[in-house]
């Protein structure tokens, strides 16, 4: 039986169907999860998809973090459940303090959607173990509040512990500190990325299929476990 990967739909989630598709293409069984339902329905991993949960009206991810499903996710993530936050999902993970730092308004103040070059910096996480260290990939970035910020000490710690998962190459699309595109928690089971791997899983609709490795990585991790 293939592992089950859940994708949460919050009010205002937008890339939830795309994350479910990516899970399916990777070979796992996609399970839709609903924000009001605290049960994770036995999934082996969770994706928090992109979008504008609750319209991003207070701060991106700030309200979604208090939904019933998040209470369970926070609890289980601390016990090792693989959790991936993409874009708005990354913002939710930071608001929930599963990841350090925060995502602030892009330095140029515009929403920006482009095909972005990245370098994978950490391959020991649940979601990036299928990449080779230093591998360069291209996946779409699209956000208005994607500038990763944290204090200097936190940034230094992230660097020292190998928690910086991916960095922007070429021009930094949002002013992120130290060109950070994605980070993990210390254990490596919780990962947040600003760019959208679920939009690079098919040659027909994406700039590449580089994003698929994110989803096959967790599968590999789950099968090995």
């Amino acid at each position: 039986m293939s592992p089950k990967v859940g994708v949460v739909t919050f009010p205002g989630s937008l890339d939830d169907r795309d994350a479910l598709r990516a899970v399916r293409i990777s070979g796992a069984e996609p399970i839709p999860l609903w924000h009001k339902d605290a049960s994770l329905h036995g999934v082996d991993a969770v994706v928090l998809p992109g979008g504008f949960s609750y319209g991003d009206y207070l701060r991106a991810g700030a309200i979604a973090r208090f939904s019933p499903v998040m209470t369970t996710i926070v609890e289980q993530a601390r016990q090792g459940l693989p959790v991936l936050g993409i874009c708005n999902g990354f913002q939710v993970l930071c608001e929930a303090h599963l990841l350090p730092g925060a995502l602030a308004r892009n330095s140029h103040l515009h929403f920006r959607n482009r095909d972005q070059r990245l370098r994978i910096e950490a391959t020991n996480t649940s979601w990036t173990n299928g990449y080779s260290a230093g591998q360069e990939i291209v996946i779409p970035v699209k956000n208005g509040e994607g500038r990763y910020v944290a204090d200097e000490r936190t940034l230094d710690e992230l660097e020292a512990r190998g928690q910086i998962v991916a960095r922007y190459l070429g021009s930094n699309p949002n002013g992120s500190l130290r060109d950070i595109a994605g980070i993990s928690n210390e254990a490596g089971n919780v990962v947040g990325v600003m760019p959208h791997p679920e939009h690079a899983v098919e040659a027909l609709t994406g700039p590449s299929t580089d994003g698929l490795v994110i989803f096959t990585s967790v599968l590999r991790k789950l099968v090995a476990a």
Partner: protein
Amino acid sequence: MPRVVVDVMLKPEIADPQGQAIANALPNLGFTGVSSVRQGKRFELEVESIDEAQLQKLADTLLANPVIETYSIRGQA
């Protein structure tokens, strides 16, 4: 009903591109002598009964993100 105002600002060390954009526009509009602008949020709460500690918690958990923001509470509860 008493009103409580919570002001939320980005911490000084966090870059504020919105405030910066406003500051940059001022000289073009003929306003000189302003060296810096920072933009924040203001929340107006109509409260029935809430104590100071709860207000603090409310601001700290939801209205502001203490990782990047500070807040101040005015008015009486």
